[in-house]
C-alpha cells in the first residue's frame, strides 16, 4: 500500500519584485524568482534533507513549508500541523526561563493545560538548573539557544522543519539534540532537515532534495543527492575566481526577469 502523501508542491513559484537602481513608481519592476516551478511530494514519516548553496532558496522553501510564507503561484498541500524549529523567536529578555516557556507556548497557541503538561520536560531537557528562574537577559547565548530548542522540540507537531537549528550550544548539547531528533524520527514524524553539513544530512536523512538557483535540481535517496551535490560544490570550488563569478552571474540572470 502506498503511504499517505503529507506534503505536496505543485509548480510552486515564489517571486519577489526588485527595486531598480533608480526608483520607479510606474511600469514593470524587475522580478526575482526565489523559487521556480518546484514540484515534489513527500510521504508520511519521511526524513528529507534539503541541500543547496547559499541563496539557492532553501530558506524560502522552509518558510513555505512552515506556513509562514506563501507561494506566488502554484499549490502547496500540507496535511497536519507543521512547525519550524525557530530557536530565538518569541523570547523575551525580561522574563524568566519558565515565563518564556509559557509565553512561547501561548504564542504558538497551546492551551494552559498543554503547556503545564510539557513544562517539566522542557525544563529537564534544557538543563539550565536554577537559571530557569532567572530572567533570560542573564543567560549566555548557549543557554538561550538551549531553552529555545527545548521549547520548540516539546511541541510535538506532525511535520517538523529544522533549519540549521542544530548548530547551537556546545558539542554535548548538540549531540543531545541530535539524539532527540533521532527519537522523533523513529516515532514516525515527517521531518525536513536543512543543513550545510552534508555528513549530518547523510547520517540523519533518508531522502534528499537539492535546490540550486531557485530550481529543483534533484530529488532522490539521500546518498544519491548528497553525492551529486558534493560533486557540484567540488567542481565549483575548483573553478577560478572569475569563472565562479561568471557562473553566479549566470544563475542570477536566469532568476531575474524584466
Amino acid at each position, binding site marked *: 500500500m502506498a503511504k499517505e502523501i503529507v506534503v505536496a508542491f505543485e509548480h510552486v513559484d515564489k517571486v519577489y519584485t526588485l527595486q531598480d537602481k533608480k526608483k520607479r513608481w510606474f511600469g514593470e519592476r524587475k522580478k526575482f524568482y526565489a523559487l521556480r516551478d518546484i514540484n515534489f511530494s513527500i510521504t508520511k514519516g519521511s526524513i528529507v534533507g534539503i541541500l543547496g548553496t547559499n541563496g539557492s532558496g532553501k530558506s524560502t522553501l522552509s518558510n513555505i513549508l512552515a506556513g509562514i510564507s506563501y507561494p506566488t503561484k502554484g499549490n502547496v498541500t500540507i496535511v497536519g500541523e507543521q512547525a519550524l524549529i525557530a530557536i530565538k523567536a*518569541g523570547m523575551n529578555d525580561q522574563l524568566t526561563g519558565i515565563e518564556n516557556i509559557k509565553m512561547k507556548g501561548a504564542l504558538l497557541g497551546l492551551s494552559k493545560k498543554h503547556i503545564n503538561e510539557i513544562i517539566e520536560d522542557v525544563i529537564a531537557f534544557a538543563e539550565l538548573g536554577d537559571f530557569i528562574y532567572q530572567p533570560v537577559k542573564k543567560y549566555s547565548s548557549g543557554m538561550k539557544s538551549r531553552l529555545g530548542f527545548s521549547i520548540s522540540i516539546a511541541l510535538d507537531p506532525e511535520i517538523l522543519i529544522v533549519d540549521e537549528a542544530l548548530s547551537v550550544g556546545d558539542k554535548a548539547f548538540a549531540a543531545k539534540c541530535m539524539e532527540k531528533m533521532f527519537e522523533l524520527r523513529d516515532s514516525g514524524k515527517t521531518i525536513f532537515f536543512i543543513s550545510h553539513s552534508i555528513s549530518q544530512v547523510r547520517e540523519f536523512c533518508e531522502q534528499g532534495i537539492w535546490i540550486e538557483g531557485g530550481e529543483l535540481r534533484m530529488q532522490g535517496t539521500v546518498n544519491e543527492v548528497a553525492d551529486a551535490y558534493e560533486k557540484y560544490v567540488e567542481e565549483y570550488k575548483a573553478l577560478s575566481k572569475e569563472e565562479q563569478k561568471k557562473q553566479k552571474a549566470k544563475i542570477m540572470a536566469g532568476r531575474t526577469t524584466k
Partner: protein
Amino acid sequence: MKSVWFVLKENLTNFNRILSISKYETLADYRESRLGVLWSVFNPLIQIFTYWIAFGLIMRKGSPATSPTGVGISYLPWMVVGITVWFFVSPCITKGCNAIYAKRNIITKMKFPISILPATVVFKELFNHIVMMLVVVALLVVRGHMPNMLWLQVFYYMFCAVCLTISLGMVTSVLNMFTRDVKKLISACMRMLMYLSPILWPITDVLANSNALVRSLEPVIKLNPLYYVIEGYRGSIFYHDPVTMHPAQTLYFWCVVIGLYVVGSILMYKFKHKFIDML
C-alpha cells in the same frame, strides 16, 4: 463577508492566546523597571496633576464643569474620569497601528494568526486601564461620590472602547505595513485628537461662552466616536444618564465600529499572506 467571518473566528478561537500574550507582555514591561506596576499609576497621576494646575486652576479658576444636561461637577474628578479613558484609548491607537510591524520577529519565524495582533495590544492596555479605574473609583468614593447601579454602565463603555480601538487597529496596522508613515501620521494627530475630544474642557461650558462659528462646530465634535465613550463614562458616574438616553449616538457609534471592523477585516484577509514579504 467571508473575510469578516474569518477574522472574527480567528479572534474568538484564539481568545486565550490573546489574553496570555498580553499578560506576559505586561509582565515583561513591569520587569523593566524597579517599581514596575506602580508606574502605571504614578505616571498618569503626575500628568493629571499637571493638567489640573494648567486647566482647572489657572484657566478655569476652579469653576465646575457642566454636563450636557446641565449638572455641575467639580472639575478635578470630572477631568480625572475623562483622562483615564484617554490614557487607555490613546496607547491603544498609537500602539495598535504598529501591532503587526512590532511583531515582525515572530510572524517571520512561526505560523501565527496575524489578525489577533491588534486585539493583543488592546487587551494589554485594558489590564492597565482596569487597575487605573479601581484607583479612580476609590478616589471618587473618598471625595463623596457614592457608587450606584448606573456606575456598572462603565463596563459597557469599556467594551465600546475595546471594540472601537480593535477595529481601528485592524485598519491602521495593515496600512502601517505598507508604509511606516502611517504610524508617524497617527502619533502626530494624537495631540489634536486629545484636544478635540471632551477630555480637558467641558464642551457645554466652552460652547456657551463662544461665538456662533465655534458653536456651529458642535456636531463635528460629536462625530468623534471618542465623544460617545468619554461622555458615556461620565454620564454613568456623574450625570446619572442611562445608556438608553442617547439612541442616535449609540447607533452612530456602533455603525462607525462595524464599518471600521469590516474594512479592517477585508484588509487583513486580503493581505494576510503578503505581510511577510512586505517586511
